[in-house]
């Protein structure tokens, strides 16, 4: 069955450092991968989308890589700030056989804590 793994342990880093979060998947080949941020008690907020034919995508201090050979995506936040503290979710599309709605499968998320 399709499986997505994110590090369940919290990631603690010092302000100003680069945070790197990992998303691994098995048993399927997504065409797209998305990253979301979720604050406590709130709904997830979309951050970045990367296609299978893209190696890297950037947006301000955020960078995402997508390695379809390793079946892995890395999510980087450079010059991290305490305000970046949140849970980060990766999500992969399920590549439907028809042109119908493309569903996402979400990982369980990694909690990032940036210490001042």
């Amino acid at each position, binding site marked *: 069955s399709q499986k997505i793994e994110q590090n*369940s342990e919290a990631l603690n880093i010092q302000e100003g450092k680069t945070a790197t979060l990992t998303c691994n998947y098995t048993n399927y080949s997504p065409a797209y991968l998305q990253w979301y941020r979720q604050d406590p008690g709130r*709904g*997830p907020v979309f951050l970045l989308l990367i296609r299978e034919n893209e190696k890297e995508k950037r947006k301000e201090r955020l960078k995402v890589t997508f390695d379809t050979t390793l079946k892995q995506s890395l999510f980087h936040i450079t010059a991290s700030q305490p305000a970046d503290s949140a849970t980060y979710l990766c999500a992969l599309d399920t590549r439907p056989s028809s*042109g119908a*709605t*493309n*569903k996402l499968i979400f*990982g*369980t998320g990694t909690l990032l804590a940036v210490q001042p």
Partner: protein
Amino acid sequence: DVKVTQSSRYLVKRTGEKVFLECVQDMDHENMFWYRQDPGLGLRLIYFSYDVKMKEKGDIPEGYSVSREKKERFSLILESASTNQTSMYLCASSLFGGYAYEQYFGPGTRLTVT
């Protein structure tokens, strides 16, 4: 600004009650989704809809039903609430198509069934 709203932030219901969770989006999106989120299990898809009056089961539809009478509104119904349906319920919407458009989420409804 894009907006998805949910009818309640917190809800407490008794076992056996019929529960309605409402979701409204103002982005004219075709797709709407209902998820539940539980610690250690992540977001799990209950039902989704890609058009008015259309619905498809997600990964955990048992014990739930949905209704989409208007494009902007998607309702989740718990026919007879049970304690194992205590959870955070999240609604989302997105554009339709084979392309995996990003999903916009509502603030969530924390439902407690006693």
